[in-house]
């Protein structure tokens, strides 16, 4: 069944290429293939829920499906099916439709392979194939300069990240010999004792591998410093964007969760992941707010969201990272597919009744919302949702959920004539539901990450809190100090958020333009004549 789930999308493409001359039929065959693969993943879900693991083959080429694999398969195959079904009508008649069908089918299989690999070698193969697929998806319209720009940036970032991953793989191979993903603790142990001879001295292998893995995950997840590639890839058809943002960029989170015993064998990986994730969450989030175009804003927000996911990984909140990865994937896929609705939303805004004159939300109600939802969440965590706190780092996503409940309630109280009690009840229910969801998925994923290193929360929590508090202050008001600061930052944010095509010929640089020696003949003659 696991082999089928992995191979069906690609095999259906082979079938489509053989049988279907009409592109619409080819698309339907591939959609059927991925849908069947999704059905197989549902079957696998039943299997892992009753406790057994599905596996096929042995050695480096073996596939297996544990609970994490099944969760990832359901997301990726589901999103792929959604994008393909959407594209059947959305790209109908487009000369690039066949390109989309091919790249999506193959890439889907590549991701499925990555998440189902039992052995590091196969995971690396899957990862590299996915990278190629990602570039193909980004380059659907490579004849356009803007699309080529995005493709180039993505290629450079992925080259760096994938290089890091391959190097990490080689180091693991060298230190541990074998690298079966079901026995990673053995790998971690071997790495802990291995030293790498570098130039004159030696480096401990464990931290090096952890850092390399983090770099690989960060590159795929569009993190700082190579963050700009994702926003530059908007010049691709809508369903391709949906696939990219919901099914490909989040593989970084999966990588760290899957390799957690190696990634978090010491502080190096987690510290790096939290640093990069935190920085990107704030940077990308701020860029997203300043973007005037719908898809540009969505792309920057993905970067920030992936930062949040990496941060959760670094904090050891692996289940929360996977919850975020799935929830955000679904959110972003639908946001891209419905992006044209932004115009209707503007028209609706015009019809919308004016806000009440007392448009500031009632402070008392807001305090009540904050207290009640925090209390409700705490009660849930103390009772039926206890398991959500199995990873201590999960306290961070929970705190964010509480903040979101308060923010949304504030928005509801500002904009509507909804009764305050309704908002209060909604916020409380949402807080309980979130704790429940996290508990449910933590229990389901059942990740045995307990043995790994966890960052001391007493140190990290204040840093994270301070960073986000600063960002929140900046976003909270358009006037006063925050407003002035925003105005100062704005030209920089706008510049970083805009996608510029690198000119093909002789770009002037800051230092100088072209060397006068290269002055073309015609002007020199003109100059001489004058």
């Amino acid at each position, binding site marked *: 069944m696991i082999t089928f789930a992995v191979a069906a999308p690609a095999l259906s493409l082979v079938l489509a290429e053989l049988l279907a001359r009409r592109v619409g039929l080819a698309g339907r065959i591939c959609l059927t293939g991925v849908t069947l693969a999704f059905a197989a993943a549902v079957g696998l879900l039943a299997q892992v829920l009753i406790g057994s693991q599905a596996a096929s083959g042995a050695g480096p080429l073996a596939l297996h499906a544990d609970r994490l694999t099944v969760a990832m398969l359901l997301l990726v195959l589901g999103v792929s099916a*959604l994008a393909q079904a*959407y594209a059947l009508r959305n790209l*109908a008649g*487009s000369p690039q439709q066949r390109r989309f069908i091919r790249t999506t089918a193959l890439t889907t299989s590549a991701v499925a392979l990555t998440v189902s690999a039992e052995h590091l070698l196969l995971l690396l193969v899957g990862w590299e194939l996915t990278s190629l697929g990602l570039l193909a998806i980004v380059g659907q319209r490579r004849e356009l300069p*803007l699309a080529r720009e995005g493709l180039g940036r993505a290629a450079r970032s992925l080259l760096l990240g994938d290089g890091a991953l391959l190097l990490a793989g080689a180091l693991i191979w060298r230190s541990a010999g074998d690298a079966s993903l079901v026995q990673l603790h053995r790998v971690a142990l071997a790495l802990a004792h291995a030293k790498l001879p570098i130039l004159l001295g030696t480096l401990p292998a464990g931290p090096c591998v952890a850092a390399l893995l983090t770099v690989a995950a960060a590159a795929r997840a569009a993190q700082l410093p190579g963050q700009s590639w994702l926003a530059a890839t*908007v010049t691709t*058809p809508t369903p391709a964007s949906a696939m990219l943002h919901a099914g490909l960029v989040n593989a970084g989170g999966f990588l760290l969760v899957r390799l957690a015993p190696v990634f978090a064998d010491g502080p190096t990986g987690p510290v790096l992941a939290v640093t990069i994730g935190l920085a990107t*969450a704030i940077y990308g989030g701020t860029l*997203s*707010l*300043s*973007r*005037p*175009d719908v*898809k540009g804003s969505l792309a920057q*927000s993905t970067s*920030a*969201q992936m930062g949040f996911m990496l941060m959760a990984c670094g904090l050891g909140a692996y289940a929360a990272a996977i919850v*975020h990865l799935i929830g955000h*994937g679904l*959110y972003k896929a*639908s946001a891209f*597919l419905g992006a*044209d609705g*932004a*115009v*209707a939303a*503007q028209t609706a*805004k*015009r019809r*919308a*009744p004016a*806000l009440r004159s007392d448009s500031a939300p009632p402070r008392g109600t807001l305090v009540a919302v904050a207290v009640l939802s925090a209390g409700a969440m705490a009660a849930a965590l103390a009772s039926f949702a206890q398991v959500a706190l199995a990873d201590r780092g999960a306290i961070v*996503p929970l705190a964010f*959920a509480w*903040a*979101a409940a308060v*923010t949304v309630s504030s*928005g509801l109280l500002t*904009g*509507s004539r909804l009764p305050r009690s309704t908002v209060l009840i909604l916020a409380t229910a*949402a807080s309980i539901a979130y704790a429940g969801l996290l508990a449910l998925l933590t229990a389901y994923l059942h990740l045995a990450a307990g043995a790994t290193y966890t960052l001391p929360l007493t140190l990290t929590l204040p840093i994270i809190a301070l960073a*986000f508090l600063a*960002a929140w202050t900046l976003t909270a008001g*358009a006037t006063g100090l925050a407003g002035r600061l*925003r105005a100062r930052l704005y*030209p920089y944010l*706008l*510049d970083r958020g805009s*996608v*510029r*095509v690198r000119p093909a*010929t002789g770009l*002037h640089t800051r230092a100088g*333009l*072209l060397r006068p020696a290269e*002055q*073309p003949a015609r*002007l020199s003659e003109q*100059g001489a004549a004058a």
Partner: protein
Amino acid sequence: MSASLDAASPGTAAAADARTALVATALAAATAKLPVAWPITDLIAVNPLAGVQEHGFEGAVAWGRELLGLRGHMTLAQFRASYDAGRVTRADLLAALRRRHPTLAGAGQAEEELLSRLLEDLDDEPLARPVLGVAARLDHELGTSVAAAVDQEVLKWCAAFCGSAQAAWQMPGRERGLFDAWRAMAARDPGLRRLAAPGAVRLIPAEPLATIEWALDLLAVPDTRVERELTEQLCRTPGFAAHFRWREEHPELCDAPGGIAELLALRLSYEALAVSRLAREWGIALEELHAGGEQDPGGRAGHSRGGAGRVALNPQERAWIWLDAYEWHYRDRLLARLACGGRPAGAGRPPQTDRTPAAQAIFCIDTRSEGLRRALESLSPGRWQTFGMAGFFGLPVVLEHLHSAQATRLLPGPLEPTAVIAERDSGAGAGVLARRNHAQALATAHRAAKASALAPYSMAEATGWLTGTAAVLRTLVVGARGGQPPARPPLELQAGLALAEQIAWARFTLRTIGLTDHFAPVILIAGHTSLVTNNAYRAALECGACGGHAGGENARLAAAILNDPRVRAGLREQGLEVPEATRFIAAEHDTATDTVSLLDVGDEDELAAVRADLEEAGAALAKERARLLPDSSPPRRRARDWAQVRPEWGLARNAAFIVAPSAVLSGLDLGCRTFLHSYEWSNDHDGTALETILTAPGLVVQWISAQYYFSSVDPEILGAGDKTLHNVLGDVGVLQGAGGDLRLGLPWQSVAYGEGLFHEPMRPLFVVQAPLARIDRLIDASDLLRQYVAGGWIALAAREAPAQPWQLRQPSGGWQPWCPAETEAPDRSR
């Protein structure tokens, strides 16, 4: 020394004043040539070359070629393919050749030669990318890319300024206008630091006009080139330039000031600083560049018309001949069918009799109304009689929404509103208000969460499960349209349109369309809308006469006025007797699904038959349209499908405008390609009505036609390109992908399927049934009509009565009898 300075200063001051005046004049002239792009929420079709329409169609295309890189027509290969498909015949080509080169008549040998050249020589005139502006010309010489770099900075700021409706963080200071806000931040702009010498930003003057002048001086643009230079600068980003031209013309609709001067000042600041730095580093004197690069604008326009039998056919002229043949192939057939209209033609529907029909309906002139009118009239002989007029029904109004500070303009773009109508929160309005309040609560909460530093993470996580599920359902199970659309809030006339004006409007309208007797008991006034989903170009499918919005509200107002007993009494006094029993009913035709909903009525039994007829006719039309739409998805499903880029074909294939009594059309299937305006010239003693029709709806027809034409032939320049790449910018328009210029026109998917055009790019044929002398008088009196006819923007055919043959108005004046190409044997000279 001081003496010499004193002596020089008056002269210098005078020279400076002269330069300032020159720049101001050049700015106005350059602005007037630009297209006007309405925001996408109120998208109205425009002729993108309207600013240069006085040069005639071919001259305007030549202008566009030089400045925008337009082709301006289908490729010769496309024309040849239409010949192979029988869409153009040999006779059409021959007739076109003779029309464009009258001196050829009789020279049979030469004609044959030319014809074979037309058919065989399919190499288009090569299109060069225009080199626009000082920086670009310098780049051209040096191999640098300063101009493109300047473009990107300008696009960056334009997007920030115009797209603010979408951004959580607006451009600081934008309420002071683009230039002022930008200037306040320019020193911190990394883009300017990349391009300009350090500290140069301090040189930029504070006023837009002064900045333009300063920059032109820095660029050493001579007086003779100023207008040309400004035009070129604007044409580097035609999309935003067109949007800023709209801002300049409609400051009352903008939330921040700023017009073309601001845009140019911003652009020229970058250009001047970058170029002067480049010139300094290279040691180039810019004056030489201007001396070397002078070109006569429009010098290459036009075509050569040689002596008898000696015609040089350059690729451009070949294309115009092909276009002429392509257009007249269609027009000949249309005129031939209209010639026998009004008389029974075989098995078609019977002619209208003197009997009073069971129901009448007034529709918009929109091409899509033709299908529904035809379907209704062919239900049963004489049961339905239909009319056409502009879909705002002559009532340019502003609609105030329930408790909203904003309003919607329901009127054609060039008009000013004459009345204000408002939604009331009584009756059905209460429910509508509650729904809008809830929708707004959700939207506000969503916006607040997205704009916060803390909330987006958990919000995405939590709502993802819901929106993801919804996305799957919307993709797999495309919802069937459920039941009746919700009732609308009652309307109230708030200002304007006093009773006397209402009576005058009613009389004028009814007499113009020829509805003065035989009133049916039920008369529908049907506006139209297009209820599509997830479509940025919805406004382009809505009623253009209502400003890119649904036409139902105008119809409701029209029906209310015509049902008002005081108006009826007023009409009676003026000799227009509308029977007591006659009831006007507002309706709205959804062109995506071909359903018609009746507005402001209950479930009366007397309307059951009307509803049944509308349902039957709508279903027939939907079936007919389904045959033209690609893939098998039926129209009523497409409208609800969020993945659908082509919910309907809209006004694609529009080709003609018929101004004549409704009876002329009976028995004819015009294939949803014609705009139809009912007109009874005998009721229009002084020609006012005809003047209005030709200059107002006529203008709209020409604009729509031009929008479709140029979106088809130049999809990357005057069209919006591939819809699946679109990225909505604020509430103003779309970008293609991650950036670039604002897109003009319509998406490729609106005019084509795959690589093949569905729309047939042609200039419209106006067909008028009215005395020729009256038409001549109107053309003489109107600059617009003269430019249209003499410039070849439209073709005009007319006759006074159905029994007479069609006469064609010649561009140079005068009329000639219509003589279809097919009847002329190629060897028979006239």
